[in-house]
């Protein structure tokens, strides 16, 4: 039946009652989460929810993975089996998860002032709790918040949002339903310098 839902109806409303450029409700929780993370953030865009813990900068567990002039940024993403409508376990080696963590790593590596912490490691652990479209944007935003929360020096912070095109009308912050139907792109920008950081 999903195909029976109009992405953008004649009245200019999307399937969840938003208009074209409206974002879903964002809620942010920065309270520390157990296990002594240095910074953490739980962020939800509508029904997409991710929780990020940042550890570090700390001593690298494996010496081989250190750099003499900067800190190593390590991103690990876990997607909870219950996060999507169909229960599905994804292993660590899942290509899609690897790609996601690679993207996030590539986004943040140049933003974090890594040269301040040579031979150390910054771990970013992302846990996806609920998925309803805009996963990458939620991960990036939550990571930014968690990094700030951890007090890690950044050149700028990265904000991301997904955009799609329905015929000729652009839409922002797509839900899963919209993401499945529309060509879409996630854009990360750095508001202070006004530079784009990521287009995916």
């Amino acid at each position: 039946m999903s195909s029976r839902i109009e992405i953008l109806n004649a009245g200019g409303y999307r399937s969840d009652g938003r208009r074209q450029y409206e974002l879903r409700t964002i809620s942010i929780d920065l309270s520390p989460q157990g296990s002594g993370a240095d910074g953490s953030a739980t962020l939800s865009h509508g029904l997409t929810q991710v929780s990020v813990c940042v550890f570090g900068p700390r001593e690298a567990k494996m010496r081989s993975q250190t750099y003499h002039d900067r800190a190593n940024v390590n991103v690990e993403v876990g997607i909870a089996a219950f996060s999507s409508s169909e229960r599905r376990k994804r292993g660590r080696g899942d290509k899609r998860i690897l790609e996601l963590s690679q993207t996030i790593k590539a986004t943040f590596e140049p933003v974090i002032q890594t040269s301040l912490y040579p031979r150390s490691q910054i771990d970013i652990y992302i846990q996806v709790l609920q998925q309803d479209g805009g996963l990458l944007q939620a991960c990036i935003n939550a990571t930014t918040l968690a990094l700030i929360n951890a007090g890690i020096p950044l050149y700028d912070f990265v904000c991301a949002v997904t955009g799609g095109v329905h015929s000729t009308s652009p839409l922002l912050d797509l839900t899963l339903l919209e993401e499945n139907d529309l060509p879409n792109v996630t854009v990360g920008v750095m508001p202070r310098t006004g530079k784009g950081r990521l287009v995916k």
Partner: protein
Amino acid sequence: MVEITIRKRPQTEAVITQRKFFKKTARGKVVKVLRERYLRDDVGCGIEGCRECMASNEPLLPAKGDLTHQLFPNGHYVLPDTNVFLSQMDLIESDRFRSPMILLQTVLEEVRHRSLPLYNRLKALTKSEDKRIWTFYNEYRSETAIVREENETPNDRNDRGIRIATAWYNTHISLTRPPIRGQTKNALPTVVLMTEDAANRQKAEQAGISCISVRKYVEGMKDAGQLLDLLSAAGSDNIEPTQASSGRQVLYPEYLPSATLIAGVKAGELYQGHFNPNPYNYLEGTVSVPAFSKPILLVGRENMNRAVQGDIVVVELFDEKEWKAPTDEVVDQEATLKNDDAEDSGEEGDENAEEVIAKESRVLRLETQVPTSERQPTGRVVGVIKRNWRAYVCHIDSTSLTSTLTTSLSTQTVFATPVSRLLPRIRLRTRQAPSLLNQKILVTIDRWDTTSRYPEGHFVRTLGKVESKEAEQESLLLEFEVPYRPFGKAILDCLPPEGDSWVVPPKGDGDVRNIWRDREDLRDVIVCSIDPPGCQDIDDALHAKLLPNGNIEAGVHIADVSHFVLPDNPMDSEAAARGTTVYLVDNRIDMLPSLLGTNLCSLRPYVERLAFSAIWELTPDADIVNVRFTKSVIQSKAAFTYEEAQIRKDDPHLQDELTNSIRLLNSLATKLKAKRMAAGALNLASPEVKIHLDSAESSDPIDVEQKELRETNSLVEEFMLLANVSVARKIDESFPQTAVLRRHLPPPKTNFEKLQDILRKTKGMTLDVSSSGALAASLDKCIDPSEPAFNTLVRIMATRCMLSAEYFCSGSVARDTFGHYGLASDIYTHFTSPIRRYADVLVHRQLAAAIGFSPLHASLHSKSHVERVLDVVNRRHRMAQMAGRASVEFYVGLALKGRGEVSKSRGEGEVREEAFVIRTFRNGVGVFVSKLGIEGLVTFKRDTQFDADNYTISVPGSASTAGSKEGVKISVFDKVVVQIEVEKDKNTQRGKVKMTLIEPVDSRAL
């Protein structure tokens, strides 16, 4: 910069903002789906001058509402519920229904779920200028959004939502227009809930919402009289629509196991045959079986039980009491099923399905009272022995699309409508539906389950844009299964290595390959060929000369294809598979590689060519004294067109040898024809037209005209017949078991019954069908002095009553059924066109063996092999004929379109032509336009009086001919004038010739 306004509720009201439901996936898993919904306060009410709601660009509803309705003097707006749109769409669409209407989102979405076509109609209405419809997104407005309660059906939830929205509207109106002090209290317009559901009305009344049934509402309107007619009857009693049916509904009976089928057929209880649907009525089909003279009729979807054209099915017969006669009505699948939905049919017990079934049963009920004489065996399909599914050329039905945006990536279930009217619509799942619109595509059927009303298929590839010549041509070839791929290397390797430069070697020592062995040297004989203009594959040539004894020697020389095409090589098998050359208007699909067809075998003038000759000695009265057959070498002296030959013959100044031999041939041909006619040969007619092409490159048709027949046509024909008959006798004599012959079975008398009856009743003429001679004689008498074309028309209709001729193997049928009915010959074969017919190649081989020229290849001694080959050839032959006709039809359509445009630009109006009525239906007439050689169908929407016994139909006079209350009677054979247009079918994009009657009645208004 876009202005972004965000007005959302705080998260505390999460219950309202989240929708939760469970969904069953295709694999049977149950999945919980959670969706958000953002409620807002800026959803406008759409009433003009409302001070709360923001002005919008879209047309608003008038502030006072509608003041014309009797029951609501203070003005009102109508707020219909879903069922009103589902059942009374015609009413809402009427021009007279002009009340300002509030369309709720809940209603709109429900309509969309139920029936996409209806939704599209509704969508179009909301956009049209003369309707005042405001769409209110009640699900997004905070006050009117509701959540489904526990134990509440979705239907009840929607009804409640509609009631709440109505109540909200009424309070909204009163709130936004508070009484102004000092003025008398303004009468406020009301929002009226229009619903057919009595329970819903009751609940609404309890809540103090004014509501009304459709009938009552319409009764109070200005144009009540006309509008009441539009109310559909089903609306009053059939209310509660969504029955949550358990699982899929079984629509068709299961097939019997194949062992039972085979046993039943062997025992004679069941009958096996090809399924043949009725092109005029998609709910009817026939299966011809040898056990009955009339084919077995299958009426209704269930009895046809998922059979598709060409399937070999097994039929169970009903009791004789239940036998029926075929309908006289035209039932168009597209018209009847236009509201049917691709996605949900069979998926849910939708009321749409019931509607379809009701409609169909209504159609079927009509034909119960018929005299028993017209009844024919009726039965139902109980099994399918062999599916004959292939790839079908289709169009995507645009109304079945959920989204026409090319950016949409989601999978959609859509209908593909086959080009052929004989096929059902095919359900298809595709991601690229929007981009396939307006394309001809190839679709194959995968399966047809008992629970699915339509077969399911998948997309194969696109052929190209609709109406582009390439796409249409390829689609024609595919539709008629013409193998059209280029010849492969293995085949081309069988050609003589010399290629173009191959020549007949000089006689004597230079003849290394021994080509001259046993060949007669006829190079000096004055041979010429007569063919249609532009003919490249000349396979026959003629000569005639006076013998000293006063007799005449006449010779027919046929291209010696069997010299080049040797048995059992790749070229031979390919030719056998192709069976025949297919001639389309602007193209030719060859049976043999063109090097042979148009060069080495073609008996072109002035070059030496190998031939197979039949040479007779005839008396001046055209009696055969003797005949001999020989392989030969000839050199044609001239290649004439029919016209050139005719002019040459008629020019008395020309006394050269060539002209004289044509005259000699002609005199013999006239005598031969007279003899043939005396023996009872039929002079049949078929509508043949010729397409004038603009130029070879653009191949735009510019005009259509009927083919002219000249004396020389008949000359060539007579000698070909003579050759065929002589050869047939010879090979039958030599190979009584395996000779390749052609026969035309006499048609069963019953085939003519209808035509005889029509002729007797309308013209008082009789048709004697006792023998072909009698038929020929009585056909000659069918002359209407005032109407010269009448005789041709009767001939055409008589031809259609006959069976088609077929090739057969002499050993496999009884000797007394060898005869050729149409030619009144006791034996016949095809010998004269080996370049374009494979049967002729076989005949050549047999004849060569019969005269001791070469031994017969082993395969031609085997009866089963010959039978198998001829089966293929027969089928290919039929298909080629149909493809050729369809190609002509397509070009006639193009030409008509061109002509229509020209005459329109000149301001002459549309193309009008005279036509004859050839068939009458309950709701229309079939007409034949002889000038264009096309048949068309004129249907009447308004009531007509149909008299099946007398084949007449009375059409009420249109407004212009008022006064004649009786209406005008139209009967079969009446001459009428039709207007011909080519219009694109809205759904399928199929160019279709549309005819409307102009005289005696103008049916445009009907």
